């Protein structure tokens, strides 16, 4: 067994050697290995702590205190061919990076039917890094976005079949943006380092129509994030607005609807629809205090969705899982840029869980996100950077659960 794990480690370290982007828009949907291995189709069951993300109502059916925690290793690979007007054969590769969003959930039944829980996870994030002197250096050389959602949640079981849940989300995060500034004279670099916070809420409901069939729905609100920080320019020319900088970002609302069916004592299947209200992200407007100027990058994202299918097969203490997802990009063709080389994608999920005893379980999941090749030919003048993006992402998650 050790040998097998060793070769797995070698395999993932190898794939990590490649490079950096994640989920459609800058969303992250991997918040628990059990859900992830089933294509993220989990809102109608939500049987572990990740219910805080997928459907808080699911907590009400969890009758024992439990801790569920883990991480996802994300290794994106992206290549850009272009700009088309330069040379279709010219290839730029995203620099290799490894991202490790976390998830920690603790739930505790306070009294019959009422469960309290708290979770910490990273529902939005992004990281891209290109060569300092690549053809798109005036658009982006490095972006790193990280958000932490801290979500105290309550769930209540109204009847044997019906439960509801709700929570608040305190959001804290940071953004780092680096690129070359085109001044006509020289190539100063800007480094924009902002930190942000905001509040949101989430609600959910779950209904067990029959012992075999259940339906779940949840909604997480938009979060208005106020970011503040500093802009640093190298070299510092007075025409460049060094110093305080601020921006506002409205993180999109997300809704899930799922339907789960227990085919047999061993097999459960689920299909989910996830709605992402990305039209909230219409521009990235950074205001510079020193000269009251504003740098506006139009984004004009559109609302998008993810289709999720997955299931679990029980084999003694082992749970074998698999799934598939289709994730629709919220970025319109003319707004595609190397800061976030987005495209529609198909995800193939596999994984397993093992219950060591009454208390302790371990879950593994692997997701391969295959991006459709995206050729953009008419980017807006602010971008004017046409070409073809090809990307895939390896995601590997591990979570351990302890039920008291």
């Amino acid at each position, binding site marked *: *067994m050790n040998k*097998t794990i060793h*070769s*797995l480690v070698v*395999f993932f370290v190898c*794939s990590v050697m*490649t490079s950096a982007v994640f989920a459609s828009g800058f969303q992250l949907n991997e918040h628990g290995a059990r859900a992830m291995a089933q294509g993220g189709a989990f809102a109608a069951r939500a049987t572990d702590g990740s219910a805080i993300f997928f459907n808080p109502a699911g907590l009400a059916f969890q009758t024992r205190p439990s801790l569920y925690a883990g991480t996802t290793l994300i290794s994106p*690979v992206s*290549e850009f*061919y272009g*700009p*088309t*007007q*330069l*040379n*279709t*054969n*010219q*290839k730029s590769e995203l620099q290799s990076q490894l991202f490790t969003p976390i998830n920690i959930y603790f739930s505790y039944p306070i009294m019959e039917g009422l469960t309290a829980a708290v979770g910490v996870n990273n529902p939005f994030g992004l990281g891209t890094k290109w060569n300092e002197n690549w*053809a*798109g*250096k*005036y*658009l982006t050389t490095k972006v790193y976005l990280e958000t932490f959602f801290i979500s105290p949640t309550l769930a209540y079981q109204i009847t044997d079949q019906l439960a509801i849940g709700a929570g608040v989300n305190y959001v804290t995060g940071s953004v780092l943006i680096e*690129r*070359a500034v*085109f*001044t*006509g*004279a*020289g*190539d100063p670099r800007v480094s924009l380092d902002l930190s942000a916070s905001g509040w949101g809420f989430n609600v959910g409901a779950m209904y067990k129509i029959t012992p075999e069939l259940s339906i779940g729905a949840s909604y997480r609100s938009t979060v208005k994030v106020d970011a503040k920080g500093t802009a640093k320019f190298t*070299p510092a*020319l*007075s*025409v460049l607005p060094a110093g305080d900088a601020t921006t506002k970002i409205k993180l999109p609302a997300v809704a899930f609807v799922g339907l789960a069916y227990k085919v047999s004592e061993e097999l459960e299947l689920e299909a989910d629809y996830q709605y992402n209200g990305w039209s909230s992200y219409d521009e990235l407007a950074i205001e510079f205090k020193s000269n009251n100027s504003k740098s506006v990058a139009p984004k004009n994202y559109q609302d998008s969705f993810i289709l999720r299918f997955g299931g679990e097969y029980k*084999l003694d203490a*082992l749970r*074998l899982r*698999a799934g598939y997802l289709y994730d629709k990009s919220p970025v319109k063709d003319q707004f595609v840029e190397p800061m976030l080389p987005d495209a529609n994608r198909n995800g*193939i999920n*596999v*994984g*397993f869980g*093992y219950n060591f005893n009454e208390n302790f379980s371990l879950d*593994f999941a*692997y997701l*391969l996100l295959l991006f459709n*090749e995206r*050729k953009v030919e008419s980017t807006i*003048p*602010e*971008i*004017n*950077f046409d070409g*073809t993006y*090809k*990307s*895939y992402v*390896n995601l590997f998650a591990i979570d351990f659960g302890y039920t008291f």
Partner: protein
Amino acid sequence: MKALTIGVALLTAAIIVTMGGCTISTPNGPASNLGSQTVTRYVAIGNSLTAGYQSNALYASAQDFSFPNLIARQLRLAGATIPNFEQPLYGDPGNADPTTGKAARYELISLVGPVIGPRGLTAGAPLNTGLTRQYDNLGIPGAVIFDFLDTTSFTIKAGPPRNNAFFSLVLRQSALGKTILAQARALRPDLVTFWLGNNDVLGYATSGGVSPSAPTSAAIFAALYAQAFDSLRASLPNAKIVVANIPNVTAIPFFNTLGPKVKPLIPPGVYLRYQKHGNTSLAFDSTRFTEANAPLLTLTGSAYATLLGANTGKWYRDKGILPPPAGIDTTKPFGFHPQNPWPDALTLDADEQVVAGAAVNAFNGTIATLAAAKGAALVDMNAFFTSVKANGYSSGGQKFTADYITGGLFSLDGVHPSSKGGGVVANQFIKVMNATWAMSIPMVDISSIPSIPVPFGKISGNGIPAIPASSFKDFDWLWGQSN
């Protein structure tokens, strides 16, 4: 534990199957090519714009980004079998200012001001003189349309009145061909870019309509251009020829920088008193730069703009016009008093703007007609630079404007493109070539071309570029073909 082992094994197998090896296949796209065309030799004919003249001088590190050199590079990427594209390289920091004997090249010396001008460096020397054939880049700074077929010896052109040593630098010996055409023909090119005529109006405009006092007349230009173009086509019947027309002179920062900086310096109730065309004495007109057809002040006036309101006759002393013309009183406030007006030579007034504009229109009419008649492709540089002036030009996150220094497109002399500007110009040619002959020549990557070097620090002061007046003598001789 057996079950766990099975699970791990299954997962590993699934991963290996789904991964199918971690590679991304190259997307299918149009590869660079020349279509059904071949290019075995490319020759560029033109003036300073073709030569890669930049920031008031010709020097190798700018010539490297001359638009013809960039086009030659892109042609090779598309499969052209052209040999080395040979240019009359001038070692950095480039040619000497004929007055000082030091390097003429402008640099951004200080951001305080800003201060722009020659650094007083020892001039460079021509580098590529051992070449036993003609240069592929036959761009000659200062050349007018007349020069294309002119057989006057190169050394005579280096003396008065033209004082233009670039004919000797570029064409070298008459054994290689007595005219630009002869040298171009000898190379048997199958691709020619031809961009002449700019100086037939630029000399007039940059000298504030003084020297020469009129652009080349439309009729003479038409005759000279037709003669030039007929001979070119007759010499190279099968060559692909690309011509570019003449951008309107008022689209360049040389004319649009100083006026807006001077405007806020005029006290309330006071006017800038300036001489109009042909005026050498009392001011003929006044402005606060609020009217629609306000005069344009040339960049040459930078050194005098800071003297506005002072009781000075510096301009006359610098020009050697002593004593100043009758009616001028240099004890009156310079520029603000009708008896000590802003000089005609530093002003392109409304009438002169009309004259220059009419010349450009007439020249471009001739060029368009001849290009069509002789089967040449036409690059509408006038439309391009007019649009740049109005809307700027964006590429991969770089927003160019027609602004001086910060606009990125023009070099420090405010007339000639910067290195990045050379790339932008090259791309205009490439776009037309691709469209005309169904070629897929890749565009120049402008983001990889260096910007104007900037000293560390901050731009401060009144923003009037402090350019030593003496350094503009180059401008006089570069275009002063008539005197």
